[in-house]
C-alpha cells in the first residue's frame, strides 16, 4: 500500500492516475458504499422536494409570451449569459487546487490529464447554468404549443450556450486569439441586451416566439453541434494552457477557497483588488489639505476616481431596475431592488474602512479617532447611493414614460417628488455599507440550526445579514412607500429623512465608541 516514491511515469495517461490514487490514499478516507448511498438518497429527496414546484412553474410557461415583456426578458437573459462568461474568464476558468498547481503542474505529467478532473467539473457547472438559462429563455419566449418539446429545445439551447461559452473561455486561456473571440462574444451579448431593451428587436422576437417547432429544433440542433465542436477544441487545448496562467488562476483559487472556507468571504474582495492595482501604472497626486478625518477619507474618493470603468459600469447598472420593471416585477420588489442597488453602490466606496478593520496597522499609525474617521468615510457612500438611486428612478421614469412607472412605484400620491426618497435613504444605505465593510470574519463556532429544510449554519448567516440589516431598518419608510395611502407621501418622505439620519448617526456613535 505504501509507496515510498512518486510513480516514475511521465507524459502518459497512466502517469496521472497512480499519482491521484496515491494522493487519495494519503488524504481523505476512500468513498465507501454507504457514502454513495447517502448521496443518492439526498439527491432523490431533493428531486422529490423540488420536483413539484419546478413542474408547476414549467406548466405555467405554457402559452404565448407577453410581447410587452419580451424585450426586457431577452435583455435579462443576455445579461445573465454575460455574467456567466465574465465570471468564467475571471476565475480562469481552468484552475487546480493550489497544492496540485505546485506539485503536479510543474512536473513531466501530461498536462491535459492533470487538468481532466477540472474540465469535468467545469462541464457540470456549465450544464447546470445552461439548464437555468434554458428555463429563462422559455419563460421569455413562451410556448404557444408542444410545451414539452419547446422546453427540451430551450434547455438544449441554454446548455449549448453555456457549454460553448465555457469552452470559449478555456480556449481563451490557451491562446490570445480565442481570448479576442470571448471578448467579442461578451460585447455582442451586451449590445444584444441594450438593443432588446430599446425595443428595436420587437418584430424579430415576435418571429422567434412564434417559430414553428421544426425551426426551433433545427436551431437547437445547430447550437448543440456548435458547442460540441467548441468543447472538443477546448478539450484538445487543455494540454496547451501555459503553466503561468494556470498557476496564477490556481493561486487565486487557493486564496479564494481559503477565504471562503476558513477565514472570511470578505477577504475575496482583496484578491481581485490587489491583482488590479499590481497591474496598474499610477501617477502620484498631491494630497489635498483638509482636516485629518477627511484627509483619511480622501483615499476612497481617489481610489474610485482611478477606476472610471467601474464607475461607468455602476452608472450603466442603474438601468437594471427599468429592465426589471419592464419584465413585470412587482412595485414592492422593484423598490427593494432599487435600494439594494443603492446599497451595492455605497459598498464600492467603503474600501478604506474595510482595510482598516481587516488590518488596523495603518489606522494606528494615523491615530485618527474612530468616530470622526467613520463620519468622514460615510460621505462618499452617501453620495454614491444617493446618485445611483436617483439615476435608477430616473431610468424607471424614462422607460415608463413621464414618470408613471416610478410614480406607481412610490405610491399613487407620489407626484413629482418620488425621486427624493433615494437621497433620503442614502444615509441609511451608507451606514449599512460601513457596517458591512467593518463586520468581523465568519464565526464558525456559532451553532448550526437543524430545520426541516436542512441544516442552517448561523455563523455565515449572521455574517451575510450584517450590514444589510441596518440598511433595511433605515429604509423601512422608503420600502413602505408603495403601500401608503394617497396623501401620506409627505409623511413617508419625512420619516425616511429622519430614519436615515438617525441610523447613520447611531451607527457612527456606537461603532466609534472605543475611539
Amino acid at each position, binding site marked *: 500500500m505504501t509507496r515510498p516514491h512518486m510513480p516514475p511515469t511521465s507524459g502518459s495517461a497512466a502517469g496521472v492516475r497512480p499519482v491521484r490514487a496515491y494522493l487519495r490514499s494519503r488524504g481523505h478516507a476512500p468513498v465507501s458504499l454507504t457514502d454513495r448511498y447517502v448521496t443518492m438518497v439526498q439527491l432523490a429527496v431533493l428531486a422529490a422536494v423540488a420536483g413539484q414546484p419546478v413542474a408547476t412553474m414549467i406548466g405555467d410557461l405554457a402559452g404565448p409570451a407577453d410581447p410587452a415583456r419580451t424585450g426586457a426578458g431577452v435583455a435579462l437573459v443576455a445579461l445573465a449569459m454575460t455574467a456567466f462568461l465574465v465570471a468564467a474568464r475571471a476565475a480562469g476558468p481552468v484552475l487546480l487546487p493550489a497544492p496540485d498547481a505546485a506539485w503536479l503542474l510543474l512536473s513531466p505529467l501530461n498536462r491535459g490529464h492533470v487538468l481532466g478532473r477540472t474540465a469535468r467539473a467545469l462541464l457540470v457547472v456549465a450544464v447546470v447554468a445552461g439548464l437555468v438559462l434554458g428555463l429563462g429563455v422559455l419563460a421569455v419566449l413562451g410556448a404557444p404549443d408542444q410545451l414539452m418539446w419547446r422546453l427540451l429545445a430551450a434547455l438544449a439551447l441554454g446548455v449549448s450556450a453555456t457549454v460553448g461559452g465555457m469552452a470559449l473561455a478555456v480556449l481563451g486561456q490557451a491562446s490570445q486569439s480565442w481570448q479576442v473571440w470571448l471578448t467579442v462574444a461578451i460585447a455582442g451579448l451586451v449590445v444584444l441586451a441594450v438593443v432588446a431593451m430599446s425595443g428595436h428587436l420587437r418584430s424579430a422576437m415576435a418571429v422567434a416566439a412564434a417559430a414553428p417547432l421544426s425551426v426551433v429544433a433545427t436551431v437547437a440542433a445547430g447550437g448543440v453541434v456548435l458547442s460540441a465542436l467548441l468543447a472538443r477544441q477546448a478539450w484538445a487545448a487543455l494540454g496547451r494552457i501555459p503553466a503561468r496562467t494556470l498557476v496564477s488562476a490556481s493561486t487565486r483559487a487557493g486564496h479564494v477557497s481559503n477565504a471562503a472556507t476558513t477565514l472570511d468571504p470578505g477577504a475575496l474582495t*482583496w484578491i481581485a*483588488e*490587489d491583482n*488590479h*492595482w*499590481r497591474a*496598474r*501604472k*499610477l*501617477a*502620484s*497626486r*498631491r*494630497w*489635498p*489639505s*483638509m482636516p*485629518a478625518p477627511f*484627509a*483619511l477619507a*480622501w*483615499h476612497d474618493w*481617489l*481610489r474610485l476616481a*482611478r*477606476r472610471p470603468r467601474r464607475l461607468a459600469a455602476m452608472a450603466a447598472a442603474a438601468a437594471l431596475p427599468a429592465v426589471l420593471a419592464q419584465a413585470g416585477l412587482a412595485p414592492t420588489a422593484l423598490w427593494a431592488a432599487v435600494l439594494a442597488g443603492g446599497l451595492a453602490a455605497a459598498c464600492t466606496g467603503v*474600501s*478604506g474602512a474595510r*482595510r482598516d478593520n*481587516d*488590518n488596523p*496597522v*495603518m489606522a*494606528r*499609525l*494615523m*491615530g*485618527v*479617532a*474612530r468616530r470622526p474617521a467613520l463620519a468622514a468615510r460615510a460621505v462618499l457612500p452617501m453620495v454614491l447611493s444617493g446618485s445611483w438611486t436617483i439615476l435608477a428612478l430616473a431610468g424607471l421614469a424614462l422607460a415608463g414614460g413621464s414618470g408613471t412607472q416610478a410614480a406607481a412605484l412610490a405610491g399613487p400620491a407620489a407626484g413629482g417628488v418620488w425621486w427624493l426618497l433615494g437621497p433620503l435613504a442614502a444615509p441609511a444605505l451608507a451606514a449599512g455599507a460601513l457596517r458591512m465593510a467593518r463586520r468581523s470574519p465568519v464565526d464558525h463556532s456559532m451553532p448550526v440550526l437543524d430545520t426541516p429544510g436542512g441544516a442552517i449554519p448561523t455563523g455565515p448567516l449572521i455574517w451575510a445579514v450584517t450590514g444589510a440589516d441596518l440598511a433595511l431598518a433605515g429604509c423601512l419608510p422608503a420600502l413602505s412607500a408603495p403601500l401608503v395611502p394617497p396623501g401620506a407621501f409627505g409623511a413617508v418622505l419625512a420619516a425616511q429623512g429622519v430614519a436615515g439620519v438617525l441610523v447613520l448617526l447611531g451607527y457612527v456613535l456606537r461603532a466609534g465608541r*472605543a*475611539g
Partner: protein
Amino acid sequence: MYEPIIEVAGLAVDLGANPVLRDVRLTVSPGEIVAVVGPNGCGKSTLLRCLTGLQPATSGEIRMFGEPPADNARFWSRVALLGDEPAWYPGLTAREHLELMGAVHATPRMTVDAALDVFALTERADAVPLNLSTGQRQRLCLAATLLRPSTLLLLDEPERGLDAAFRSRLAGLLGDYAAGGGTVVMATHDEGLAAHARQVFPSGVTA
C-alpha cells in the same frame, strides 16, 4: 522631564498553555533607545504588543505615560508602532501613502519628499506598495512611521528585509529621533542596531 515613559512590573503572559513572559520588569525614560534582544520565541514581539495593549497580560502591571495602555486615538497619536507589514490602501502609490500620513498629522516630522529621499524611495514613489520589493516595502513602513510626529517609537524587527548599508543608516535615523526627545523601544536581531541601544532581555534582565 525624567518621569519614565514606560513602567512594567511583574509582567507575565501565557499563550495557550505556554508561558511566554515571566516576571518582566522594565523602565524606559524619555530620550532612551532600548533594544529588546534574545533568541526566536523568547517573547520580544509579545512584550511590544503588551506595551501597546494589543496583547492582554496574564498578570502584572504596565503603565505607558503613567497610565495603562489604551487603544484610542490619544494613545496612538503619541505612539508609532511598526510591527507586521500593514495592509496597504488599495489604489494608492508609495508617495500617496506618505502624503496621507502627512495630511493626517498636523506637524509631520519631515516633508514627503525628504522622507522619500532619506528612505531611498524617490525612484519608486509612483509604484503601488505591492509592486515594491520586500526591503523597499519595509523602508516605506519605516518612512511612514518616522514621518509622523510621535513621542514613542515601538519597532518590531525594523531591520527585516533591509540591506546592510541601510541598516546602519537606520541606526543613525533612530539616534536623531532620540536626540530630538523621542524614545525608541525595538525588538531586534541586528547587532549593529542593538549596539546603539540599552539592551534588555524580555525577562527584564539588562544584557
